[in-house]
């Protein structure tokens, strides 16, 4: 399918976004002596091995004890360290929600919660590990910045940007090998949406892995004479409401796309913005109130409708509602 399409962004290489985090963390460690790393028995999965090797005295293996890890990280900020914690997204959020809430968010500590294997694309491990509620939980917390980059390069850039950002932050990335379609030298501005493709009929707001699916969907829609705008919402919170409203003022309808529950995620954030300022049809692409399951990433994205084909379908519904 992708091969025959005239895509506005292309790729020559695929890589996992977690490697963008690992490589970004290593560079961050070299740039800033205050950067420290913590991990809960998942160094390989989080790609934190290079940082551990180069900065053994600034790296802490905490064992399988995520609640302890969050508390330790909060404590390390007192005196100026910048802790980056690493474990799977489920154990980075739901497992330790109150530790994050009290010791990190409410206490406004400069902890960077770095979470891999988010969403369905974790694959075969199944629902216990495939968290689809993390963006919602994290964006509900006052003081928390929430970032969900789309590919290896953007994840690396986001990791580096977090070093200079002061305050609690949640950085979400994943396990599968994924197209690298954004530039290596990009400047990552926290809270600033990135309009990747200009369009006039419908806006696709996407985050994380689904930004790539949105790029593919744009080309598919163009073949049918529909002009879609694609906006990469890498920062879920603070949300770039200005960019959202500007775009929908022009297109008049939108689709949100995320590897997350419909409840509480990007789509809901956009709906809130639109309903308050500029009501317009919005269609959601995401998981509709169900848990995930085992399967390959591609099978799961298809089964749960988290792919380009479904974005196209939803875009057409949004268009119909606009003119209807």
């Amino acid at each position, binding site marked *: 399918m992708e091969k025959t399409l005239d895509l506005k962004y292309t790729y020559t290489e695929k890589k996992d976004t977690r490697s963008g985090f690992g490589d970004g963390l290593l560079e961050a460690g070299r740039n800033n002596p205050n950067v420290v790393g913590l991990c809960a028995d998942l*160094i390989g999965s989080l790609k934190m091995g290079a940082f551990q090797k180069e900065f053994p005295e600034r790296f802490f293996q905490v064992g*399988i*004890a995520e609640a302890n890890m969050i508390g330790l990280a909060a404590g390390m900020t007192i005196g100026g360290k910048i802790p980056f914690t690493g474990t799977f997204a489920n154990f980075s959020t739901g497992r330790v929600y109150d530790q994050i809430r009290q010791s990190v968010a409410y206490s406004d500590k400069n902890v960077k919660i770095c979470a891999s294997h988010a969403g369905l694309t974790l694959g075969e*491990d*199944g629902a*216990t*590990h495939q968290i689809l509620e993390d963006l919602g939980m994290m964006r509900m917390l006052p003081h928390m910045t929430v970032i969900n980059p789309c590919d290896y390069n953007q994840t690396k850039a986001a990791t580096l940007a977090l070093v200079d950002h002061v305050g609690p932050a949640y950085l979400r990335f994943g396990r599968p090998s994924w197209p690298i379609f954004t530039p290596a030298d990009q400047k990552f501005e926290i809270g600033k949406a990135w309009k990747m493709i200009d369009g006039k009929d419908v806006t696709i707001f996407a985050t994380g892995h689904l930004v790539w699916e949105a790029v593919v969907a744009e080309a598919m829609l163009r073949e049918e004479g529909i002009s879609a705008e694609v906006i990469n919402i890498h920062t879920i919170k603070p949300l770039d409401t200005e960019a959202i409203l500007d775009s929908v003022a022009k297109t008049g309808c939108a689709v949100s796309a995320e590897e997350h529950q419909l409840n509480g995620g990007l789509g809901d954030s956009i709906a809130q913005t639109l309903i308050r300022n500029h009501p317009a049809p919005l269609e959601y692409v995401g998981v509709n109130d169900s848990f995930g*399951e085992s399967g390959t990433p591609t099978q799961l994205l298809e*089964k749960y409708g988290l792919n380009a084909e479904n974005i196209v379908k939803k875009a057409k519904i949004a268009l119909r509602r606009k003119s209807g």
Partner: protein
Amino acid sequence: MEKHSIDHLEGICSQVRRDCLRMVHAVQSGHPGAALGMCEYVVALFFNEMEHDSDFKMDGKGEDLFFLSNGHVSALWYSVLARSGYFGVPELGTFRKINSRLQGHPATEEGLPGIRIASGSLGQGLSVGIGAAQTKKLNQDDKLVYVMMGDGEQQEGQVWEAAMYAAHHKVDNLIAAIDLNRQQIDGPTEKVMDLIDLGAKWEAFGWQIVNIEKGNDMASVLEGLAKAKSLTGQGKPVMILLHTEMGYGVDFMVGTHKWHGVAPNDEQLENALGQLEETLGDY
């Protein structure tokens, strides 16, 4: 439960090990290491020690119950469940595939017979097992609850909340076990987060301890389980320290964390299967 000879039980172990390896190999994902290591213990429970009914009922009234807290060892449990009649052996071929009841980690969502609670996020199973054991007491049900955990899993704080609770509330119809393979994902437990003397810790928390020094020797496992059973009903929970070797039964997998969560390739599978007799017929 009818009792089997040690030879017969060892034959089942060989087949279960084959199942685990073939399941993990087929989807190139899953956790063979601890599955191979815990095989004797789980086979002994289901084929010899527990009173249970393969015509599965969630309530499990009048039956011994089993909870797998270290849910990543799912392949082992699924094979044992299938081989003891909970569901058809061919279904093992759907392990970790889309639309399967055999999820990567045990789940109740798809209704797989034998599973009473989801597990996979570590550290939660002992609390659940204790709760189920207390319900048995409330129901005047004199059967036992068995809980299996990993040794790396002992690093989770919830395990120790449960430890304190069970002793305080005299939950003595419970036999928990720790798979002491001394390995976890990032390496030996000693290097990752030293557990030091686990027996002394559990004892200090008010539990009775049974050591099964040779957890991969069926006779020792049966002996240890008999001892553990004899300690129930005495006002204290019982903990088995099951000393095993990760990857037991396949020479190139033994004793290393490297096979915690890695699937064998075609050649490695063939080599491994060559070391394990097909006793009950592959699925």
